[in-house]
């Protein structure tokens, strides 16, 4: 690779930055109607939950085809969710998730 990816990194910035900046710099975004503000307040939980679920439930094979995945990661993520929901302690949830997945994989439960 030896420096070739520097150019690719710059190009990746060029295609990523607009989506990061558009909402922040577009005029009028702070004067949206209440329904739009309410909608945007729900985006966080929806997109972060979808991101987590897709990460552990969908894998893309070498052929580029996505497929449903069942594995020990489900348990780790669910336990983390339960800990955060019950005790509001994300750090404890993350530690529990890592331990569960590490132990599960050591026991051969790779999914």
């Amino acid at each position, binding site marked *: 690779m030896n420096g070739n990816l520097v150019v690719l990194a710059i190009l990746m910035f060029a295609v990523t930055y607009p*989506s990061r900046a558009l909402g922040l710099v577009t005029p009028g975004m702070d004067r949206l109607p209440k329904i739009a503000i309410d909608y945007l307040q729900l985006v966080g939980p929806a997109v972060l939950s979808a991101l*987590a679920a897709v990460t552990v439930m969908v894998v893309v094979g070498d052929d580029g085809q996505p497929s449903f995945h069942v594995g020990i990661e489900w348990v780790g993520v669910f336990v983390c969710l339960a800990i955060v929901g019950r005790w509001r302690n994300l750090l404890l949830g993350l530690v529990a998730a890592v331990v569960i997945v590490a132990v599960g994989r050591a026991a051969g439960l790779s999914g």
Partner: protein
Amino acid sequence: MIDAVAMSVIAFAGAAELAAVGYVVAGLSWPAILVLTALLNARHLLYSATIRPWLADLPLRRRAFMAHFLTDEAFALSMAHFRRIGRGDERGYWMAALVMLFIPWNLATLAGVVLGGQIPDPSRFGIDVIFPAAMIGLAAGMMTGRRELTAAVVGTAIGVMVALLAGPAIGIVAGGLLGPLVGLAVPTRLAHETAPLGSVVSAEHYSTPGEFDERDEDGPGDGAEPPR
């Protein structure tokens, strides 16, 4: 090493960086990699639109600069912080985006380049589960009623189904777009909002033990409106 550092500093997009390396190794053309990167990062548009009302008072140039650091984690941490205190907080944003993410991410990238080869199979330590677990944990922290819960559950279901049909990047965006629409359909009287944004109970709900007491005197008033 310069490739990895450039990716982390300039692109600063974890999932896209990892995917790009895989694409390069697989021999994908650069235009194809850029299209996939744009698609994979399209969800940031939702983040920037969502966070904008909280940062509306800041000058345009500063918001434009802040945009580069708006990652999944920066969004989640900042929004949880803003909702907790009931207002936007530039210093809080930089704490999340720069101090807690950008700097550690780049230091970890360097460490990975230098030391990574000495770890034969990092996945056996279960480290990879931290990302989805953190995302679901941060999402749970944003839930204060049935609207958020509905948006999250529906967004998850749609996200996974679309991901299986059209790929993970499209699935995540679809879930993030459509989940809130269904969440909005929950009537206010059924929403059971336990901690309206900007209220004292919201600050209490999100704060860590001890923090609320310190902020109580000059904290947000009960019933204060979120930024509009």
